[in-house]
């Protein structure tokens, strides 16, 4: 069974706050849920499917379904870190195609800034019950230094430079200057990135994403319902997901799960990277974008550094506009999980509702891709390809 054409994204909403000390986590989830439903022209009583990741309070979907007082006949709390929400749209489309639900709600929210979660060298939050724990955590592994090792290897194998990494951040800042809600709106140059603190060789502080409070939600439904609503039609063309891991010690840090999830999504959509007018690509770090662009097929393996250089990701300047909301590097990265914002900006681009300064002309095909977990150990990849009908 293919999901190509079986479901539509009809609602998308990004919380305007980047710091929310006066709101509860459940409240943030509810606010983004109601925002996305209002955007679609639906109410909470239309929802019969709920999808969430590891950021919800409580066990799986229970507490949020209760808080919102939903009546669902399908729920899915698959957790692949920050890429979960892209996977959820895939799962929602599958459930809709199988007749298991009609209106699916996907939410993400968090308030790490208000709860004092440290930025930068975040420790892994995994459990000592995990079989891999004792073989990684005692060596001081953090999100930051394990991604840094991926960057180091990429530079070694392919000649990727710190300047090329910096161009990813520069592009994000060019986009964020037009986003009034973005956490960081100042333009940044390559030199600014290279002159920022070296935090984990070869990554500088400005190679790293922000951590923000807030969240976002999307609503997915069947074609008949989508056509009754008054929003532009955003059709799901294809999706893919994969898990990459350490393979018994056969470590290769130069590629991600996106190699497999991207290929599956393009095959289902019957499209190629050349068809994509806009791409949301998970930007936990600058290196993440380079590796994923290669894996998705926008350039050859090893060419990512050269591909992103000289403004090639900047709307109106380069060949492939990426993360026109400012991405996780500048705009929003709620709860260290950027997946939902990746979908939301892709929907904005297809609807023609991106900021005029970054709106891609004739944007008919968009891609959203995420990597959740650790690029350098084990992670999930999720790819979604959507089309303006």
């Amino acid at each position, binding site marked *: 069974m293919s999901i190509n054409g079986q479901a539509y994204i009809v609602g998308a909403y990004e919380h305007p706050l980047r710091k929310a000390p006066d709101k509860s986590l459940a409240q943030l989830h509810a606010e983004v849920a109601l925002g996305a439903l209002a955007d679609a022209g639906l109410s909470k009583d239309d929802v019969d499917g709920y999808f969430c990741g590891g950021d919800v309070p409580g066990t799986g979907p229970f507490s949020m379904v209760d808080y919102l007082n939903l009546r669902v006949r399908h729920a899915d709390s698959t957790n692949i870190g920050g890429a979960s929400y892209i996977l959820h749209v895939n799962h929602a489309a599958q459930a809709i195609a199988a007749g298991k639900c009609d209106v699916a709600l996907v939410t993400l929210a968090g308030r790490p800034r208000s709860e004092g979660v440290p930025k930068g060298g975040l420790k892994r939050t995994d459990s000592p019950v995990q079989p891999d724990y*004792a073989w990684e955590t*005692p060596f001081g592994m953090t999100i930051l230094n394990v991604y840094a*090792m991926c960057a180091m290897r990429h530079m070694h194998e392919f000649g990727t430079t710190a300047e090329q990494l910096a161009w990813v951040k520069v592009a994000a800042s060019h986009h964020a200057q037009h986003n009034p809600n973005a956490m960081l709106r100042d333009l940044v140059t390559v030199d600014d990135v290279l002159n920022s603190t070296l935090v*984990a*060789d070869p990554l500088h502080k400005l190679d790293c994403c922000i951590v923000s409070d807030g969240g976002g939600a999307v609503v997915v439904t069947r074609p008949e319902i989508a056509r009754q609503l008054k929003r532009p039609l955003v059709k799901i063309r294809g999706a893919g997901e994969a898990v990459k891991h350490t393979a018994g010690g056969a470590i290769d840090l130069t590629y991600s799960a996106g190699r497999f999830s991207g290929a599956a999504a393009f095959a289902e959509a019957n499209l190629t990277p050349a068809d994509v007018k806009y791409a949301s690509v998970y930007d936990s770090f600058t290196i993440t974008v380079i590796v994923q662009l290669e894996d998705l097929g926008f350039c050859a393996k090893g060419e990512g550094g050269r591909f992103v250089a000289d403004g090639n990701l900047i709307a109106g300047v380069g060949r492939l506009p990426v993360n026109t909301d400012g991405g996780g590097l500048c705009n929003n990265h709620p709860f260290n999980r950027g997946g939902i914002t990746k979908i939301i900006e892709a929907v904005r681009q297809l609807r023609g509702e991106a900021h005029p300064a970054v709106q891609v002309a004739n944007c008919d095909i968009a891609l959203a891709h995420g990597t959740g977990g650790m690029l350098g150990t084990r992670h999930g990849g999720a790819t979604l390809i959507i089309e303006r009908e």
Partner: protein
Amino acid sequence: MSVLREALDHQPETKAFWSELAEGRFKLCYCRACERAHWYPRAICPHCASPETEWRAASGQGTIYSYSIARTAAEPFAIAYVTLAEGPTMMTNIVGSDFAEIAIGKPVEIAFGHEAEDGITLPVFRLA
């Protein structure tokens, strides 16, 4: 009890690795069915799924596959992936070396006697 001790207590299948290492013997987990070594060690071979795994003495030799210097830590340190002479690549630290000397491709050897919390000996490496 430290979180590492707790983690070890959850993993009876790798208990021998840690006790051997504390005695100055670096062991790798091999599969008797497919004759391949793997990392991290486990009771069931990740290559061929055989439960016939066993500990064998390892050379303690390897080369740096990748590394980073964690410069924001209270005491900066080198984290690395080292590809062992026997094949698998493992996460570790490079100790006792100037950070500037560390590079991908450089040979390393196991450095015994490096203890973490609770006196647990860790498999770390130094430049050879």
